[in-house]
């Protein structure tokens, strides 16, 4: 398979995202942060994971107080690049499409972010607790800064 180049992959994300691309931080040779609207997250993920066949590293949910950010880190091992897709979720509507149907490996981390930060992943087949016990009090999210 032909090796994808760094410029090519960033350009393709730009084209696919169009006006839904909110910010692109080309931080260094090996780190790129892309902020996109949450509606196009599945589309960009499908491009990266299914078409370019990059590796999903992990997602990290971050409470930035006024909102919750989720960063989906993808590693393009052939060129040593990490692309982090960032979606910002308003605290009044903590909902984003689940990526588990696209990548099985997203299942556990979505469950983890769900229980620790209270984000609802729409369409997750089995959104139960991963780390916390089953009878953990509802509405109590250990990693939230405001609790």
């Amino acid at each position, binding site marked *: 398979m032909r090796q994808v180049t760094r410029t090519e992959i960033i350009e393709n994300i730009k084209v696919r995202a169009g006006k839904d691309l909110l910010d692109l931080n080309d931080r260094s040779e*090996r*780190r790129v*942060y892309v902020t996109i609207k949450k509606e196009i997250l599945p589309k960009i993920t499908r491009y990266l994971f299914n078409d370019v066949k990059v*590796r999903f*590293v992990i997602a990290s949910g971050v409470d930035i107080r006024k909102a919750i950010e989720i960063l989906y880190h993808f590693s393009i091992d052939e060129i040593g690049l*990490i692309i982090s897709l960032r979606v910002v979720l308003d605290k009044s509507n903590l909902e984003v499409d689940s990526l588990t149907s696209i990548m099985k490996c997203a299942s556990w981390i979505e469950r983890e972010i769900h229980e620790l930060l209270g984000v609802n992943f729409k369409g997750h087949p089995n959104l139960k607790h991963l780390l916390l016990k089953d009878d953990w009090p509802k509405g109590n999210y250990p990693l939230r800064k405001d609790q």
Partner: protein
Amino acid sequence: MSTNKIIPIGPYHPLQEEPEFFRLHVDGETVVDIDIEIGYNHRMIEKIAESKSYDQVTFLVERICGICSTSHPFAYTNAIDDLLGVTPPERALYIRTIVGELERIHSHLLWLGLAGHFLGYNTVWMWAWRYREPVLDIFERITGNRNHYAMFKPGGVRRDFYEEDFPWIKKTLKSLIPKFDMFKGAVLDDPIIRARTEGIGILTRQDVHDYSVVGPTARASGVGIDVRKDDPYAAYDKVEWKVITHEGGGVFAKAVVRILELYESTNIILQCLDNMPKGDIDLNIKDMPAGEGIGRHEAPRGEVFHYIMSDGGNSPAWHKVRAPSFMNIASNKKAVIGGTISDATIILAAVDPCYCCTERTAVVDYKTGKKLMDGQDLVRLSQEKTEKLRSKLKS
């Protein structure tokens, strides 16, 4: 309801003796489904990190894992270096590399011993752990500790190496190579180990992509991913070495990859000792700007990933840790199903799971809830299968 029985393995894993829980759904001897539960050992280290200073977090993350204790400080300091956009002094990079590779040797030997025990090769177990000791002795000489070395700090390392130790370290390491040959012979040439481990717990290249597994688990399926090569850090791009891969994807392939990596790690350390430049070992970082950083390290079990967000204060505003086992354990869903109960224990152990970073065993009749087997019985079952193979091959 079918006649499927459920075999709970856990929450203490019979091999690693760390808590997690597998529920095997079995039909006769065949495993038809598996549920995996983790979280028994969750200590909220990421939350604690928010209340520690950047220097203290290095020691905090060192406590995530007791076996590969340097993997997390390695990835964490890489993340801080990425956030600051700095590269530590060259001597510090060589010291980091040596500590990281010594750890890989002792961790792989530990796994090899446990895997041997599981298959009923207690001699392999004793030998592997016996020859792990000289590695710990080296650690004690150069860091002061057999484990939890406390060598790393953002922007460098905490202690320098003494040149007068180098001949002794080299001699000790070289004396291990014939022992590695012995293990290689034991695993590659022994028809029983081969028959027992080849072709079970297979992960294909597609599975590696689907589950995004990392480390020896991926490399044993012929996928040559290794952060040390792909996203070079420390001194890994300054020495000659190769990424070990093996086709096959089963338990056998995973053992082969780990054994061959012992040679590569030894090779890397010897080159580092020869080429280590003199000079500073620390950048003495005082201030942390706001920003974010990502650090990775190829731990013995695969890629460790740390994400740090800084608001310019004294402690991380956010810290995310991903250990390799978080991805690798989930792939058991693929590897175990279709195999037999006697193979399940070694397959579950083959990814070298680490629950510190991410069970008592009982086999219970699903209908009556009556206990049929416990952890020791499962180990016995696995060992008996090896014994059967042995007598079959003899006759």
